[in-house]
């Protein structure tokens, strides 16, 4: 167990190193340069461009740039080229904005997908299964931005739920309760939208996984023992059907830093997705690289969590 952890950590550190190199190179290879973000702007004289290049070490060889950046990152001194603010502070601020969206969206996805998928599998080809299949494929195939606008029109005109930004402008002067409720209402539509696609996909996944397990010999054995259906399906079948989702559970960790560009843009939500998107457009390398690096760390941490969880839930797996 300890040796597994040690080996796994070393492997992940090596992976992280390669990720850092590759992501650095990919960004350098991308067309456009930070110093030439607006070449038609008369203020960007050659002298200023030269100065920018010097200040941001863009005149140095690549490996030096690489080292300088990661030195800054690990000492916490890395700053955005756009506004000279510390990148970690900027990310933290946006992260806190995205967090409620992520938590509510994930909770909705995971709490709805499982009951829907399991029920569909148990009553395979029944009306419930057929109607959820239809709805799932509808939700999977409809473009998110289009669906979002339809929902916005419906919600704003019929339910009077506020939708744009994280809170209504000026609400901070109202009482704390009103403020809190306002923020909650703002959260509803974007997180529901973020979850619908997830529910549609994940519930299909749960259904097919559950169907496969229901066909297993040991489920027949459970029935032959005279157990009632609930015990057969929710104890004997479900425990096995859940195993692959444990892996997926580790994989949601990177979602913490990812955010959703489309939903955040539609709802003017100042979250992580938009930060990354704007940083890419502005060639703000330190922000892009830092978000990349944190994502990589979270992906690797997620796989480790998955491995450990797998060992807990599946007695056949021993990590050595």
């Amino acid at each position, binding site marked *: 167990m300890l040796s597994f952890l040690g080996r796994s950590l070393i492997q992940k550190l090596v992976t992280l190193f390669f990720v850092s190199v590759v992501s650095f190179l990919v960004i350098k290879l991308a067309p456009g340069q930070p110093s030439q973000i607006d070449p038609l702007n008369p203020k960007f004289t050659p002298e200023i461009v030269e100065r920018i290049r010097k200040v941001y070490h863009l005149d140095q060889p690549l490996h030096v740039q690489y080292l300088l950046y990661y030195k800054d990152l690990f000492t916490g001194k890395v700053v955005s080229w756009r506004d000279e603010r510390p990148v970690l502070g900027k990310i933290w601020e946006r992260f806190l904005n995205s967090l409620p969206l992520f938590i509510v969206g994930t909770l909705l996805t995971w709490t709805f997908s499982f009951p829907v998928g399991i029920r569909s599998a148990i009553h395979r080809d029944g009306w419930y299964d057929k109607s959820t299949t239809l709805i799932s494929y509808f939700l999977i195939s409809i473009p998110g931005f289009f669906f979002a606008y339809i929902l916005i029109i419906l919600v704003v005109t019929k339910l009077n739920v506020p939708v744009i930004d994280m809170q209504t402008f000026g609400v901070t002067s109202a009482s704390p309760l009103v403020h809190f409720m306002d923020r909650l209402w703002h959260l509803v539509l974007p997180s529901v939208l973020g979850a619908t696609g997830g529910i549609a996909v994940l519930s299909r996944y749960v259904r097919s996984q559950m169907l496969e397990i229901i066909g*297993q*010999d*040991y489920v*027949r*054995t*459970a*029935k*032959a*023992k*005279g*157990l*009632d259906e609930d*015990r057969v399906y929710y104890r*004997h079948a479900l*425990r*096995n059907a859940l*195993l692959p989702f444990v892996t997926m559970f580790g994989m949601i960790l990177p979602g913490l830093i990812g955010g959703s560009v489309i939903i955040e843009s539609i709802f003017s939500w100042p979250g992580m997705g938009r930060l990354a998107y704007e940083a890419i457009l502005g060639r703000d390398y330190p922000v892009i690289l830092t978000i990349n690096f944190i994502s990589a760390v979270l992906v690797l941490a997620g796989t480790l969590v998955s491995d450990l969880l797998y060992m807990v*839930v*599946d*007695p*056949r797996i021993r990590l050595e």
Partner: protein
Amino acid sequence: MQTSNDIVLSVENLQVHFHGEGPVAKAVDGIDYQIRGQQTVCIVGESGCGKTVTALAVMGLLPQPPAQIAAGAIYFRGQSLLEMSPAELRAVRGRGIAMVFQEPMTSLNPVFTIGDQISEMIRTHEPVSASDAARRVLQLLDDVGIPDPARRIKDYPHQLSGGQRQRVMIAMALACEPDLIIADEPTTALDVTVQAQILKLLRDLQARKKMAIQYITHDLGVVAAIADQVYVMYAGVIAEQGTTDHIFKNAAHPYTRALLAALPTRNKRGLRLYSIPGSVPHPAYKPKGCPFHPRCELRQPSCMEDFPQLCDFGKGHLVRCPITFADRGAGKQRLT
């Protein structure tokens, strides 16, 4: 003389159809058999002859659809299983009739310990405490010859060998002391030496626990070892039935005789074993007349037209072959 009270299981004119694409597959096409208390009844036949489907129908484990019990009745201790409510049926499963499946490697749930799985059987049917159940599990594991049960009780199925897993399945089947155990080719997936051990175990346990066994197999060697009564199935019907003695000494149906001819025995050492040409017809595409006629060496024109009835050879020996019935006594035709 046995009284009718002594009949544990009675299957009457059971017909199981499978509906899918193409014509209806009549996997079981009208079979009758009885099992009396403490009797061992063997149902013998090739793969696809309907013997497992029959067992699953008795247990109520056929997936419906695609399967459909088209006709017939199944009585367990005089009560009709097909008319029971799901709750009544659950009370019979495990407690009245228990089943041991063919595949020990996949028939135990991989995420629960074997102790859990056996005690679950006990606690489903009897109001006993967890500690009492655990004590009984230890005793059961000991009964089926698992060494060091106190340690093994916490093992997961993947930690046991195939033979041990089948012993665990048998322990589970025995847990509530059922009147009948249906064993569906329990030794087919095991090594020959382990097969012999499991057979002996079943025989010993049957004598001790006084239960009936319906043993499903394709192996006549196994039949000779354990059966009191034999039913030979072919293409969803019973081709021949009788006591083990009758079947082995006076087999009349050409199919049974071909099976016996294909059995390796000591005096056939060095000779090429007989094999029956062709294979069992698909249940959806059975030939007209006697289903065995395309493979039969005694085939007459009438065999291709009329479905044969069971002919009574006396003393409970019934054979679905009018050709051999007409010839009985007049010197037996020999098969190669």
